[in-house]
């Protein structure tokens, strides 16, 4: 069994580090995360999350915003967002 990812503090202000950019590319058919010598396709959900990682909004505010925008249960959004942000941070694509 994989271990539960450590929780991210509600007042963390996630942001993309220098050298990581979210861009929309018509030619590549959608949102992509550009990183050091790597390119990740971002699906619509991932793009909505990453767009909000400005370094200003807190995790709590991001989750509130997503729950409102997508009319979804806050608990589920929190779990999904936490898992995604942690996975990005492990790949050095996000600063928490």
């Amino acid at each position, binding site marked *: 069994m994989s271990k539960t990812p450590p929780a991210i503090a509600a007042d963390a202000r996630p942001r993309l580090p220098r050298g990581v950019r979210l861009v929309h590319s018509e030619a590549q058919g959608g949102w992509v995360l550009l990183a050091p*010598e790597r390119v990740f396709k971002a699906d619509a959900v991932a793009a909505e999350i990453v767009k909000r990682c400005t370094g200003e909004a807190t995790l709590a505010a991001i989750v509130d915003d997503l729950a409102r925008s997508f009319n979804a249960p806050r608990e589920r959004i929190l779990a999904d967002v936490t898992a995604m942000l942690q996975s990005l941070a492990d790949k050095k694509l996000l600063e928490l």
Partner: protein
Amino acid sequence: MAEAGRVPLHTPLGLLAELTHRCPLGCPYCSNPLALEPRDGELDAATWARVFGEAAALGVLQVHLSGGEPGARRDLVEITAAAHDAGLYTNLITSAVGIAADTLHKLADAGLDHVQISIQDGAPESADRIAGYDGAFARKRALAAAVVGLKIPLTVNVVVHRANIDRIEAMVALALALGAGRVEVAHVQYYGWALRNRAALMPSAEQVTRAATAVERLRKRHHGEIVIDAVVPDYYARLPKPCVGGWGRRSLNVTPSGKVLPCHAAESIPGLEFWSVREHSLAEIWNSSPAFNAFRGTAWMKEPCRSCARREVDFGGCRCQAFALTGDAAATDPVCHLAPHHADVAALAAAQDDAPYAYRHM
């Protein structure tokens, strides 16, 4: 539906811009061709700017400014600014020798996104011996510190072969100490100068096994701290690498003089017709140049590739390697365990000798 007999075109993601073949180092595994392009044949900055604009229009997202040593270009800042202004993610691939501190500041201001510095070994004497340049190691440390000081993300690229493969742990520790966010453990690939020095560079099977174990251990130990990218070296693999993500599918390589190649070693295959950015737009070259169309899709394949379930996973491996080892660029890459020439690869890997390196030189 794609037109019969035609292969639907993919959009390229990356462009490798070989700005020059000039380089102060003499690494015996250099991937540049044996016949190096002299300075007076190099594209000027204005032409590179046009190429970057055309690349962005074609869908390219990242440009890798490479060489030779890109720092040998006096107009590197201008070239980098042009790539950034075209909207491309800019990656500088450097030996660190020839990039002064003030140049780095100007590159950062010009929008440089990322720097990759190659390291030849974990200790100065051995690193400088492999690079064929006294004092290179100290300069790499200095540039790495400057990159990290400017908060530009840093990748350390360690090229491993028989002389240093047992020190992967020390090299990863060095990358961490330098502040790199990513380290690439790149086994030598045998093209160009490396092919000439193959017997002197080839690691033993035991070394390769120990290296794989070391990488796994280091990945666990440094999870979340540094990204470690590594692949099984060609001559010890069972399955071939999907070279450049498939021929004419994901990337383009522009040589110092402007020839556009599907991969950096493609000129080693005789009979291919390459077009130049001096005569054609990048889109024309991507869509229509004979070299790009030579191995697109699967129609060119022979058995065992043609009927293989992995034919669109690894694309038959590397065309340049197939040619180098079998004399037929359309053959299955002999790295593949299904290839008729697979046994030759083990024999070549076993042919090791400690002859002095033939250092790369212009």
